[in-house]
């Protein structure tokens, strides 16, 4: 049984439909990432699960108990939902020490003072904060503050934790460490975690499942691999990864394959559109790492010859920019290239045609 289930949730804020019927389920040991551009409703969804936003329809179930049901008029207040919530800004209470911040939820639940102390210390220890209990939040580094926020959310043992862009306030270096730490923690504690992020790399790295939201609906949901390698719509394809986007005219379609005409070139690719688009304008999308520099080849299907415009060294690879009539393509390649024209191979199984 799912530890968190959201079904057909709808939210209207000030006359705007923010969520237009969103569903998801989540089990212990799983991390689901809510991904999407700003304004897609991902934070609203997270806050609605916590009872901080008011849906007008749909249901939310936490650990089998219905906490919201628009039709039945059930609406548990935030404090009765028993969730863990890590805020983007951490929201540590500045007037309480670290230990007091963490102990607050236990105090509310009437836990005896000595048990409180032990539990808080154990939680702080497990997060590597053992000696910081007496400090105030402003005396901690950003990474430590984030851990305190996590400790505060977990100390009373909720099964479902909600994380609102938990890594966005950390600097780039720290963020990668925190990412691994967070994933390990969720698996170790066997939590069901729902996490909002706008960073697709973060979502791919941490989540077991990604829900990509767009305009208040789930555009596509699936494992990180599915989302990255098998996007169903142009929006998903473009949102995940770095892409080349080429406009053209769709010429034919058969057996899940399609071909698109771009200037004098005819590209084959995987069809991601209905057959009634034949003869109409379409787009070909290919990831930067899908393009191969094929010098020495003599052309052929899905080969194009373009001029190298400029090159950028990215550290682990090079990015080259090529341009030809009606086509601009960026490609990753593991070395520098001489100036002039180069053959590029756009393998048909890496090209999606929308």
């Amino acid at each position: 049984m799912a530890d968190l289930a959201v079904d057909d949730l709808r939210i209207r804020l000030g006359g705007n439909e923010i969520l237009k019927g969103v569903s998801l389920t989540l089990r212990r040991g799983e991390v689901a990432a809510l991904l999407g551009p700003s304004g897609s409703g991902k934070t609203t969804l997270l806050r609605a699960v916590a009872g901080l936003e008011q849906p007008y329809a749909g249901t939310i179930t936490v650990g089998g108990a219905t906490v919201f049901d628009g039709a039945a008029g059930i609406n548990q207040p935030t404090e009765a939902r028993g969730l863990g919530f890590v805020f983007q800004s951490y929201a540590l209470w500045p007037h309480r020490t670290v230990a007091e911040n963490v102990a607050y939820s236990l105090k509310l639940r009437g836990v005896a003072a000595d048990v409180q102390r032990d539990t808080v210390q154990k939680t702080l220890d497990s997060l590597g904060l053992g000696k910081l209990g007496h400090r105030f939040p402003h005396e901690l580094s950003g990474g430590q503050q984030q851990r305190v926020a996590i400790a505060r959310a977990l100390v009373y043992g909720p099964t479902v934790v909600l994380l609102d862009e938990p890594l966005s306030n950390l600097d780039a270096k720290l963020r990668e460490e925190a990412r691994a730490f967070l994933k390990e923690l969720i698996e170790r504690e066997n939590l069901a975690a729902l996490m909002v992020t706008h960073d697709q790399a973060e979502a791919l790295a941490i989540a077991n499942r990604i829900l990509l939201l767009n305009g208040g609906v789930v555009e596509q949901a699936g494992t990180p691999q599915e989302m990255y390698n098998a996007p169903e719509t142009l929006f998903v394809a473009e949102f995940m990864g770095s892409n080349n986007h080429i406009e053209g005219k769709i010429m034919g379609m058969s057996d899940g394959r399609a071909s698109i005409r771009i200037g004098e070139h005819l590209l084959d690719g995987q069809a991601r559109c209905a057959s009634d688009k034949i003869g109409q304008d379409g787009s070909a999308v290919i990831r930067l790492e899908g393009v191969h520099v094929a010098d020495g080849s003599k052309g052929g299907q899905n080969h194009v010859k373009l001029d190298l415009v400029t090159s950028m060294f990215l550290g682990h690879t090079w990015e080259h920019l090529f341009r030809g009539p009606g086509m601009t393509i960026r490609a990753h390649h593991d070395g520098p290239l001489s100036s002039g024209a180069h053959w590029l191979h756009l393998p048909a199984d890496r090209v999606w045609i929308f």
Partner: protein
Amino acid sequence: MSSAVAGTSTRRVVIAITALFVLAPILLITYQSFLTAPFFDPKAQLSLWAYEFVFNEPDFWRALGTTAMLAVGMTAISVPLGALLAFLMTRTDMPGRSVLEPLLLVPIFLSPLVLAFGYVVTIGPVGFITVWWKQYLGTPFWDIYSFSSLVLIAGLTHAPHVYLYAASALRSLPGDLEEAARVTGAKPGRVAMDVSLPMITPALLFSGVLIFFLGFEVFGLPLILGDPQGLLVLSTYLYKLTNKLGVPSYQLMAVVVMVIIAVALPLVYMQRMLLRTAQRFIAVRGKAVRTNLVALRAWRWPAFLLIAGWFAGTVMLPMMGLVLRSFVSSWGLGINLLEVLTLDNYVELFEDSEVVSAIINSVAIATIGGALTIACYTIIGLAQHRWNSAWVRFADYIVMLPRAMPGIVAGLAIFWVFLFTKPLAPLRTTLFAVWVAYTLVWLAYGLRLVQSALMQVAPELEEAARVTGAGVGRAMRDVTIPLIKHGMLAAWLLIMLIFVREYSTAVYLLGPGTEVIGSLVVSRWAGGAVDIVTCLSCINVALISLGLLVALRLGVKLHG
């Protein structure tokens, strides 16, 4: 859906009580204005008689006209002067800015009544300056009791209100806007006219409306300076009406109050609208770094002298006169100052039991009463806090209403409410009635102080308490209130200053047990007791100065 918005019923009750507290006096006044006699008179009947009577009174129309002219004149003096002060203080390299800055706000915290006494004892017909002038220079060229003097003094003493808003608008003006104009080739004067001034227009407009509105409210200055020549404004006309017909003419007073509220309410509403636009202009960007100031060059010292002169004339002159007068036994032409110096006035003062209890009451109502007032405002503020509801919008309008009641009107209204409501009647002659009136008059101001502190609490701090399991009330108690402690302390200090300064509100409530410094000096001045009035005024100023020093020491911002 009721459980998620837990605490809603408590919020509703608080807002309902607030509404009752605000509306009861207004409704009672409205009702009284349509009666033929005081409401307690069994013969009182509903009619428009009182309106007809007042509107046929030439004195009423004269008072209304004088009030309008005073308000216009004040605005015409205060706004340019205040804007100039603000420009010199924030945008130029004028010397002595840091010394002048706290001083500029002093007139806001001084009682206008006390200032008026100060003017009378210095440049009144037998004031110190006047007498010396007569001795050495001949007939003085001024007449303190003329209308033009009244307008001038009112204008000069109200300039700090304009300064406050203009300066904060100028300060938040990003320096790069002006620099952009400089880079494209504009000279400093040109920049001021083309960029700085247009950018602070909303603030100036707002303060203009505010001053005009305050012009309708002034009571102390016209009471002291206008009365000897029979110059009445609406508030003093109302005060004089008290015994117009020999019997308490409540119905006539109620009509005058209705007129005052009818004029003030649209002005209050306008201020609210304008303040929003003004703040929108300010809120565009955060704190800007002041990069360079306009060099005044040869005008540096004249500019300094202008401000220093204004301060000397508006604050120093009357204050020194007051202090001096409180230490002489009598004063007039031909008296040698050294022969009349004495401490007797203060000795006598402390033998007068009414005066002593007025001082004690003033301090009590400012400290204990002020704390209770802030507690009430905090409860009202919390009831509206983070609650998106029609109730909150309703409460927003309700709390604005008392702003349209000048102190004297609110005091009268509360007096009537206590007279009208039988269970409250025994409390009328206690300090409680005065406290209620003060709390009503300063509701909008004090609530704004509390609300701005509440607004600074990041919503997720409260939400974090909610998700860990605290209900609405518990989250407020454990998170919100501890976080606004400093804001509440600051609000308390400001309210203390204001309560010590207050004079008009308690005028109608004055009686044994309810005397405060402000209302007592009004009545003693009418009795001609100059010695006691000047001593009490000095004590009043001393208390306020003490409070100001504490507030500045604690780093309280002197404006909400």
